[in-house]
């Protein structure tokens, strides 16, 4: 029986559970002996003119070796790096003239000890004349205050034109709604960290917490003007990323630069309050949805307008709405779909990828729109969905926005989730509570989603892998993917084991070292298994073929007559027992290794349906999630234990956005959620255990049949929870509540609806 598809427990856990993983700040490495600690001084003002930065007192403080400010750095400012963004939107290494968000870098203090850095950083005196701040996308689009006056606009990018005036002509019903997809903080439990040391050979070793060593290395080398050959980037264990650790951050490059300036190794680990303003945020879209159709439930036209907040500097922000626009048609057969987006600069923390990155926003918009439409015509939202879903297809389907879905059966996913959830009984219970006028009302929320995974735009073609069998019978697998919780060490070993017969616990998976693995795209966009895992599959297959050629020479047999026996990891002549030679024996004679890559040539489109049940206390407004039932079709599953873990984590982040989490700023751009005491990170008490339903439609895009699973949970659960909360109070006249559906917002919506109802 194949090991693939079985619940193999993780090989990495033996160490993680006894000694702990080795994150960047845990490194004990000779190269880092005597390292200086870097502490950054950041702007406390959202937008302002820098009048003076005085580091003289800090330079005199205990343990301070050096302080660097804008005038001490001669590096070329960081360019936008995206062709659509105005070139004037560059990022200085340290703000010398203008600060553009609370958290913008102003100076760095280097000290012998960690605590000395915090003391000395407070002694750096910064004089800033505040300017009016651009805080919302509406402020930004007004173009009255400019984040980059040199650019002449706050617009970073624009996609598409407004919908034609006659777009909804012929519809019996048209519903319009402004929908906020709020800014959230990724909050990986490990904050950002980096360490760097220059060797006598003129090369620098950079350790940093990231989601793809090769991409991070290329960025740092480019920014610092270094020959990539002198940069050795190593990714230690990484304590979560969720998109926010894609690529390199300026601080990582500065650590390497400071190590060169001082001639000593330098380390940096940020505090959580620094992380909450300094690390990329996610989401941040103001949307307007409009949906029109007939009273029989047929949707005829759907339009979406997105205003993407990119924060103060262009990272992935200007690219995210392109994915939102691409996925706007979603799972539906709407005859007309229109989507338009604008991406703008604001005086806030820059926006990057966060679990789903542009696609959850598309699903949230359309699933809210379908519910609004259903409420308007008084039809069950499950019924409206069923009426409008694309019929099952096994040949590629091209959408109105040009996405090519590989295969899908959305109605089957919806039917499965409705059956598993007991939809009919839930609606009956809801009716009874409404009839009784209970304080605690039931809300039932649905979403049906399709998402795009492994869309490797700009990452290069596919993913690299290597495999070597050693004379002792163990093997090493090299991968360009970059696990930070996903369990690649186990899953890639399973894939290699399935082909070579070498037991999983005798296979070591190596990642995140640019000297050992020069090419790799990393882990993001739910790409790893369908690109990197398949590359490992190919490497293992090629390794057996290489072994077959070698064994054939040795046994003086025709390669075609050799049979590979998985049980003994040996090749022998078919029908002649005892003639075999093992992979280990072949490796003894000559290194047995292959390097290869796999390129799927296109993305896959996982899909599913979520059903969420909430109870809302109509007197306090508090919503409690009672049940989350999900169908998530990610094609063939290599390890159900790991795939379920991905779904669980994704679901929790979706519930968190729908119910709780939001990065808030005041009108002057001051962050209101800059510690974990203020940012309402979801805890165990706010979540139920989840009910997962299996569905697996293999994709034809790769030989494993696997699609992405990392982000499905978030994409499906966010609108299902959101719709459920609104559904709980819909009978009281509430039509929409923006996320996060906090008790205050729900309570206010109920109060307002009741007041309107009595007039």
């Amino acid at each position, binding site marked *: 029986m194949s090991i693939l598809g079985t619940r193999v*427990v*993780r090989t*990495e*856990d*033996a160490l*993680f*559970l*006894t*000694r*702990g*993983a*080795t*994150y960047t700040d*845990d490194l*004990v490495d000779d190269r880092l002996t005597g390292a200086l600690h870097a502490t950054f001084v950041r702007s406390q003002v959202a937008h302002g003119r820098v009048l003076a930065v005085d580091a003289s007192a800090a330079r005199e403080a205990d343990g301070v070796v050096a302080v660097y400010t804008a005038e001490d750095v001669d590096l070329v400012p960081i360019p936008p790096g995206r062709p659509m963004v105005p070139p004037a939107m560059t990022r200085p290494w340290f703000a010398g003239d203008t600060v553009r968000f609370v958290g913008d870098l102003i100076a760095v203090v280097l000290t012998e000890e*960690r*605590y000395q850095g915090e003391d000395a950083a407070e002694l750096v005196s910064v004089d800033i004349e505040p300017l009016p701040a651009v805080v919302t996308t509406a402020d930004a689009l007004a173009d009255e205050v400019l984040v980059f006056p040199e650019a002449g606009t706050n617009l970073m990018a624009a996609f598409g034109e407004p919908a034609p005036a006659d777009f909804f002509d012929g519809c019996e019903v048209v519903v319009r709604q402004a929908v906020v997809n709020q800014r959230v903080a990724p*909050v*990986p*439990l*490990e*904050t950002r960290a980096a360490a760097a040391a220059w060797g006598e050979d003129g090369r620098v070793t950079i350790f940093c917490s990231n989601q793809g060593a090769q991409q991070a290395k290329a960025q740092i080398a480019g920014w610092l003007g270094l020959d990539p050959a002198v940069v050795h980037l190593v990714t230690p*264990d*990484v*304590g*979560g990323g*969720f998109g926010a650790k894609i690529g390199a951050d300026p601080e990582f490059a500065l650590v390497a630069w400071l190590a060169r300036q001082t001639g000593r190794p330098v380390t940096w680990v940020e*505090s*959580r*309050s620094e992380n909450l303003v300094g690390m990329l945020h996610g989401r941040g879209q103001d949307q307007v949805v409009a949906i029109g159709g007939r009273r029989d439930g047929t949707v005829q036209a759907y339009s979406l307008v997105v205003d993407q907040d990119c924060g103060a500097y262009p990272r992935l922000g200007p690219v995210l709405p392109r994915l939102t626009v691409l996925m706007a048609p979603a799972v539906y057969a709407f005859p007309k779909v229109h989507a338009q987006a604008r991406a703008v600069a604001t005086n806030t923390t820059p926006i990057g990828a966060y679990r789903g990155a542009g696609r959850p926003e598309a699903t949230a918009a359309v699933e809210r729109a379908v519910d609004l439409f259903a409420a308007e015509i008084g039809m069950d939202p499950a019924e409206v969905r069923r009426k409008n879903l694309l019929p099952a297809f096994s040949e590629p389907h091209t959408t109105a926005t040009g996405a090519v879905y590989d295969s899908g059966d959305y109605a089957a996913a919806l039917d499965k989730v409705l059956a598993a959830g007991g939809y009919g009984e839930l609606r009956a219970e809801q009716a009874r509570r409404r009839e009784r006028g209970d304080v605690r009302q039931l809300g039932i929320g649905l979403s049906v989603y399709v998402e795009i995974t492994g869309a490797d735009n700009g990452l290069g073609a596919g993913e690299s892998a290597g495999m070597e069998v050693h004379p002792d019978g163990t093997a090493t697998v090299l991968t360009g993917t970059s696990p*930070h*919780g*996903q*369990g690649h060490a186990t899953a890639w070993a399973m894939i290699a084991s399935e082909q070579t017969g070498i037991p999983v616990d005798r296979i070591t998976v190596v990642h995140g070292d640019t000297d050992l693995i020069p090419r790799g795209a990393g882990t993001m966009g739910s790409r790893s298994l369908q690109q990197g895992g398949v590359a490992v599959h190919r490497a293992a297959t090629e390794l057996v073929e290489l072994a077959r050629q070698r064994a054939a020479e040795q046994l003086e047999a025709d390669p075609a007559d050799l049979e590979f026996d998985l049980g003994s990891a040996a090749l022998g002549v078919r029908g002649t027992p005892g003639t075999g030679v093992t992979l280990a024996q072949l490796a003894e004679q000559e290194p047995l290794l292959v390097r290869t890559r796999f390129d799927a040539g296109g993305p896959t489109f996982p899909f599913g349906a979520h059903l969420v049940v909430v109870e809302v206390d109509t007197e306090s407004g508090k919503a409690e999630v009672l049940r989350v039932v999900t169908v998530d079709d990610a094609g063939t599953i290599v390890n159900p*234990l*790991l795939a*379920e*873990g991905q779904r*669980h*984590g*994704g*679901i*929790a*982040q979706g519930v968190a956005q729908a119910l709780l989490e939001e990065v808030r700023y005041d009108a002057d751009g001051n962050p209101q959620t800059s*510690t*974990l*005491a203020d940012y309402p*990170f979801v*805890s*165990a*008490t706010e*979540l139920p*255990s*989840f009910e997962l339903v299996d569905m697996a439609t293999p994709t034809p895009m790769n030989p494993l049949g696997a699609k992405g699973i990392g982000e499905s*949970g978030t994409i499906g659960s966010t609108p299902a929870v959101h719709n459920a909360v609104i559904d709980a109070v819909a009978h009281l006249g509430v039509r929409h509540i923006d996320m996060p559906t906090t008790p205050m917002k729900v309570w206010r919506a109920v109060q307002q609806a009741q007041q309107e109802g009595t007039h």
Partner: protein
Amino acid sequence: MQVSMTVNGRQRSDDVEPRLLLAHYLRDVVGLKATNIGCDTTSCGACTVIVDGLSVKSCTLLAAQAEGARVTTLEGLAGPDGELHPMQRAFREEHGLQCGFCTPGMVLAAIGVLADNPDPSDREVREGLEGNLCRCTGYHNIVRAVQSAARSGPAAGQVPQGPEAAR
């Protein structure tokens, strides 16, 4: 100042800054890096260790406040022959960890939950772990791991006594 305590069964005495947090003492002075620091407001629980039988967040204590205490970190849980503590085993079998950063604190906090309540319900486990944040697992498998450990017997709610105590 001088501070003395027993860490994972070994008595030690070190000269430290009075303001040094127990979390930094364990990581930077003792060199036990499993104890992680995930926030600066005592919110995340990644730094949870067991001090004199109680699970506490080691960022809320100064090293000096642990004078004379018996401290257990993740590194002190497995037996001398490497045999996993029932809670470690349950986390592994139930896939109760992904990136591993919250794990040391979560495992020790979970032992603390069972010390108070050897047979907790799903809800009671969640309430017991409210002060320990995890971004990866959605807590689902953590709750299962704690309940599975509870079913394995009373040892799941106890910390092993180190070599000093055995003498």
